[in-house]
């Protein structure tokens, strides 16, 4: 591994910040409104007609805390996939950045860190909205941005790696259909996974989004010692995805 210069990583992030300033309103708007829509539809709709409580938690709070993982994956994996592909293939942004004293490691690190930070902020929105719907604030919730950040790093790395691997942008459809959507649905956001067949429960345990859902719920309702293992698993995944992203994007950017 080469030495990574913080100035290069910050330079890459500063470009993202400059661009984000041009579209932050629309992104923030949708990040705030989307969980509200879900909470109305599932929490108040389903929660007042079919399910009132799950595992002793009000259904609206069950869904609201689970929605953090949804917000994180959609604010990390998708922007990483599409953003990386567009910047590489259509905008040629990376050609310009790599002509400066910036290596692919630093480029990928800057991209992942920015996406991680952004997703950590957006990930807290559903929690804040759920507090508005009656969830009691708890001190553990202060750790939610950290859980969201680590998970978002993993998904950002995954997205960059995918973007560095596909030949055409339409191939992202396979990834969203076969990977992102099942992960999102089997994360335990809308229903507890112990209702699923045994094989699906095993798969869910391997699902990083499920681990984030559990971490966030435990942050709201009480931590367990196994949460340390969950967090360690997410950190390890983020590291593996970071290296994979660098490897795949290097193959694309350096002839």
């Amino acid at each position, binding site marked *: 591994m080469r030495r990574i210069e913080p100035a290069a990583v910050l330079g890459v992030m500063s*470009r993202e910040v400059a661009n984000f300033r041009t579209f932050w309103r629309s992104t923030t708007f949708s990040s705030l409104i989307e969980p509200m829509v879900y909470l109305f539809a599932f929490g108040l709709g389903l929660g007042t007609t079919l399910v009132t409580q799950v595992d002793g938690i009000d259904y609206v709070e069950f869904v609201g805390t689970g929605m953090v993982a949804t917000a994180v994956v959609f604010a990390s994996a998708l922007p990483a996939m599409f953003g990386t592909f567009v910047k590489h293939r259509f905008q040629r942004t990376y*050609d310009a950045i790599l*002509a400066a004293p910036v*290596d692919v490691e630093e480029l990928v690190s800057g991209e992942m860190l920015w996406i991680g930070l952004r997703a950590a902020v957006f990930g807290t929105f559903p929690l804040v909205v759920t507090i508005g719907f009656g969830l009691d604030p708890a001190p553990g919730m202060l750790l939610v941005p950290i859980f969201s950040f680590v998970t978002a790093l993993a998904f950002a790395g995954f997205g960059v790696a995918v973007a560095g691997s596909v030949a055409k942008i339409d191939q992202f459809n396979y990834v969203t259909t076969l990977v992102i959507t099942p992960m999102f649905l089997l994360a335990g956001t809308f229903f507890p996974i112990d209702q699923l067949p045994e094989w699906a429960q095993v798969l869910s345990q391997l699902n990083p989004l499920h681990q984030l859902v559990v971490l966030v719920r435990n942050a709201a309702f009480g931590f367990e010692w196994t949460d340390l293992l969950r967090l360690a698993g997410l950190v390890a995944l983020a590291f593996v995805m970071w290296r994979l992203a660098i490897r795949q994007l290097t193959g694309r950017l350096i002839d």
Partner: protein
Amino acid sequence: MAAIELQQVVKTFGPIRAVDGLDLTVPEGFCLGLLGPNGAGKSTTMRLLTGQAIADGGSLRALGYELPAESKEARARMGVVPQLDNLDIDVTVEENLAVFARLYRVGDIGAAVDRALALARLSDRRGDAVDELSGGMRRRLLIARGLVHRPRLVLLDEPTVGLDPQIRAEIWTLIEGLRAEGTTILMSTHYIEEAERLADEVALMAQGKVIARGRPGALIAEHAGRRTAEYYAPPERRAEVRRAAVAAGLGVRSAGPALVIVGCERAPDGLVPEDAIIRPSSLEDVFVELTGEELE
């Protein structure tokens, strides 16, 4: 010390040898024009110099740094102006420059941005989004972005491709300013006039190597003589003149409906028809003489 030293550089893409045993030296403060058709290896040479392509063989040094091992050190002192516009179009002119000032670790970002804006004559548009600029302004900004850190070496990849003549002249003035400051420039182009006007020397590239190099005037005199005749006539008449020119040892080629006779001042009396158009020979004539290929 030479700013660029390439020795026997080879770069292949599958079965294609994009750069094939390239030797190239550019002294400091020199402007070298790389002239050649698409696929000659000009852009690959540029990418090799920025570490975005790794050579399969040979040795490369830029500003005294070995490539690709010390590429980052070299890039910190090198400015690159790409052929394709890759500015951030929603971001302001000023922010585009500031981001690259940060990437190049410039100390006083505000001063560097002000200087680059003045260079590109865009100070009054600093707060506008790039999307609002004209094509010529965007090109000037692209060049200013590559110069924001006052590089010692500038790589210009087809700096005026696709621009109209007026904007091209503006860009040439900007590049002439750089030359006057003593910046080393390696400029790829397939515009003859650009190379003739801006470059101290021209290296003609074909099939991944330099086939001729020298001052534009000297290259023309050596390979294409002083004057070239273009003769428009019916095919039979052109064929007749072509046979006579070949017999006299002159370079001839067809260019659309015209027969081109290179170095026609050496032709025996009466060979060049009186109604032929006589013009000064150009680097294009040199290129065609040496390779049999057209530049554009």
